[in-house]
């Protein structure tokens, strides 16, 4: 059949890229406006405004600081040290989007492929909308500050510095987009996703080693430190921040051709990142198949032997079933497993900072309680978004003949068990790395946990029902509880830790450190009662919010 027969009015005009981009912009705007029709959406907007103000303040503050530093370096004829300013900008630009996924949200641009987009439009949309994130905004402000600082000190250098730093910004944008595009490709499949999760987590952990390294080399004599600085200077020079700094520094020294050469190398980085991004997006555009079902290998059929579920004495069957299910889920989440190691790792980090600089060297008795408090913070994504990983499975909880309080009990027990394991590991780590905590400190910490944990779990249960967020395993930026929940959890933890600190202060005030145990046990009893009370009302709350839960998590 000819096209004309299908479409007697003639073929449609070829879609124009600007119109398509405008349509996508309008789509995003409509989604935003529609989200304001719900209370949750308005709350999320309020949280976002708060975060944006914080980012803009950080951006302007950083711009002033970096601009001042650039001005000083140029006046002091130390332009080669500009690299020391550009490296933090570079690292923030590349690492922040990965580390602070709660604050970023990506456009699901792959879903646009069903429309008649030209490859150019698709590429531009991916590049443009993916770049509108807090890291780009803040880092751009910082670069603007550096440019102004250079211009204020050496006005004749301003045009060249602006060209170099704009190119540096473009390289950063291209690198970030390229990295995300490849990460999304690897995250599209569960197995590679889990491997990436572990690698990502190890990278985050390794950042914690910066402080001990600084402390270690801080002890070295000036010549040694200078030598190390020179070595680092050599290593960083061929990388984008080093090249951008060298391009400006050489021009400042009147060596224009070497400056242009470094600028050319910087541009080559941009071209390389562009090529890699293009390579990835082109494969996406042509509809690569990442289906895991298609890759599944058939294994020989065999009737599995009956394998009963877990049996936890004293717990009803449904509570045990939920407890088992939660722990099985966690055991299959590589990054979550590695979070168990974090408190211990932090102890090692503090320990290797050196005795003189060690925070705990001054107050070793604080090691165990602070480690326990840190462990509680790690539970946020689990306990404040209880149903996030369940997705549409949450419907089952409403269809099953089980009270919601039993489901919550099972989940809370699983989270409490993980927390107890972490606290035990922290106690062991403290004993091995420092010294065993005294009985008084151990009891006081346990009393503090008995006070904090029930309140934290009760608050987490409420936020899990009122502000659920589906946890998408394969997409960056959708991994965490909602922004409202994250901020609220900070508030709850702040209040709890302040309460604990107040008890400690009282015990010091009265000169009796044992008094902190009963002082914490009394509110612990009240906290348990509050938890039980909240749990008793959870069925009504869950039923009242079942539509929201099912629709939010089943998307």
């Amino acid at each position: 059949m000819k096209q004309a027969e299908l479409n007697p009015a003639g073929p449609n005009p070829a879609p124009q890229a600007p119109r398509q981009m405008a349509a996508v912009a309008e789509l995003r705007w409509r989604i935003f406006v529609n989200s304001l029709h719900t209370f949750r959406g308005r709350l999320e907007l309020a949280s976002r405004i708060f975060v944006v103000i914080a980012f803009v303040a950080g951006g302007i503050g950083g711009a002033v600081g970096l601009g001042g530093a650039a001005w000083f370096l140029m006046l002091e004829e130390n332009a080669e040290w500009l690299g020391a300013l550009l490296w933090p900008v570079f690292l923030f630009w590349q690492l922040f989007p990965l580390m602070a996924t709660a604050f970023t949200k990506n456009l699901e641009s792959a879903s646009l492929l069903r429309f008649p987009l030209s490859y150019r439009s698709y590429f531009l949309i991916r590049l443009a909308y993916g770049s509108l994130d807090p890291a780009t905004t803040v880092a751009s402000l910082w670069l603007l500050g550096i440019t102004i600082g250079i211009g204020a000190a050496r006005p004749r250098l301003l045009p060249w510095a602006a060209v170099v730093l704009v190119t540096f910004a473009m390289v950063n944008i291209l690198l970030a987009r390229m990295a995300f595009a490849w990460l999304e490709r690897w995250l599209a499949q569960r197995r590679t996703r889990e491997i990436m999760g572990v690698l990502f987590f190890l990278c985050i952990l390794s950042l914690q080693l910066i402080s001990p390294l600084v402390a270690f080399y801080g002890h070295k004599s000036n010549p040694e430190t200078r030598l190390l600085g020179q070595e680092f200077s050599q290593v960083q020079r061929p990388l984008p921040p080093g090249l951008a700094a060298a391009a400006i520094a050489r021009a400042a020294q009147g060596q224009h051709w070497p400056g242009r050469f470094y600028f050319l190398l910087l541009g080559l980085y941009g071209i390389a990142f562009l090529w890699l991004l293009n390579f990835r997006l082109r494969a996406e555009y042509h509809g690569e198949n990442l289906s895991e079902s298609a890759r599944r290998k058939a294994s020989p059929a065999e009737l599995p032997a009956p394998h009963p579920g877990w049996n936890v004495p004293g717990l009803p069957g449904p509570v045990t079933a939920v407890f088992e299910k939660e722990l099985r889920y966690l055991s299959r989440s590589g990054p979550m497993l590695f979070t168990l190691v974090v408190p211990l790792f932090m102890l090692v980090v503090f320990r290797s900072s050196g005795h003189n600089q060690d925070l705990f060297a001054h107050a070793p008795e604080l090691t165990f309680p602070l480690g326990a408090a840190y462990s509680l913070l790690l539970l946020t994504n689990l306990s404040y978004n209880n149903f996030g990983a369940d997705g549409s499975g949450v419907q089952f909880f409403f269809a099953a003949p089980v009270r919601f309080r039993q489901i919550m009990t099972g989940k809370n027990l699983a989270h409490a068990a993980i927390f107890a394991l972490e606290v035990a590991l922290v106690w062991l780590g403290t004993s091995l790395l420092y010294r065993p905590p005294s009985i008084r400190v151990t009891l006081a910490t346990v009393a503090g946990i008995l006070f904090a944990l029930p309140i934290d779990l009760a608050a987490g249960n409420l936020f899990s029902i009122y502000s659920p967020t589906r946890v998408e395993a394969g997409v960056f930026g959708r991994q965490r509880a909602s922004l409202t929940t994250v901020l609220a959890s900070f508030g709850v933890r702040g209040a709890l830790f302040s309460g604990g600190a107040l008890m400690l202060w009282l015990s010091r005030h009265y000169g009796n450190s044992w008094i902190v145990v009963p002082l914490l046990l009394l509110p612990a009893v009240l906290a348990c009662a509050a938890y039980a009370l909240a749990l008793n009302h959870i069925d009504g709350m869950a039923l009242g919010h079942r539509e929201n839960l099912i629709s939010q998590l089943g998307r």
Partner: protein
Amino acid sequence: MVTPTIATENLTRRFGDLVAVEDVNLRVASGQFFGFLGPNGAGKSTTIKMLTGLLAPTAGRIQILGLDLVTNMVEVKRQIGVVPEGMALFGRLTGSEYLNFVGRMYGLDRETAAKRTSELLEFMQLVDQPKTMVTDYSHGMQKKLALAAAVIHGPKVLFLDEPFEGVDAIAAGTLKAMLQRMIARGATIFLTSHVLEIVERLCSHVGIIHRGRLVAQGSLEELRAGVEARAAVLPEAATSDGSPREKLTLEQIFLRIVGGSRAASQELSWLG
């Protein structure tokens, strides 16, 4: 008078100004295979969600097995099985772990849950994927698993929302075999489907909802007789040669009841 297995009284659900379901009075007797039909957006899924406790009605009453759903929610849920829209699976469990979990949530002891899990996996031909997580199952396998989960506790009533959607002929055959066994055991099945041929072949009784209102309910023969009786009084209904009319299919009955002929005669300006 025998108490119906599923009965609703003026069941109504509003979403703001939109009335999704209005004054629906359903009657489904014990042992019936009941097909619940309607055009898109007619209120099928909303109704089945209310019948299974996934959605609160704005007004009206629901009785399942003679028990009021609101006041006996847990007791009712214990006796029903549900395959809801979206299937309600837990993706990061294996099929075996998932069925074990569901069995225990329905109050089965560990050994019984494990034994039934094995049988169900074999019956549903899912035994060749013992280590595969549910999230990696194909759509048809997920449907089979969802149905297996809905029957693991031996429910008296089964609610299925579009159980054959996206399922190939082989998987559909397995599902149908399972449902027919359930009916033979005396269970009651309430299903929604867009595939009228399947409903016609499987279901003994049918209800049709249109724009939120229940517009027809009864056995296929009753519905056919009703449509034919209505058609008989219209002058264009008689055949030109006076020969007996062919038996109406469910699709014809459905289209006549919901008035689906208008769209066929419409034209789109740019398609001609």
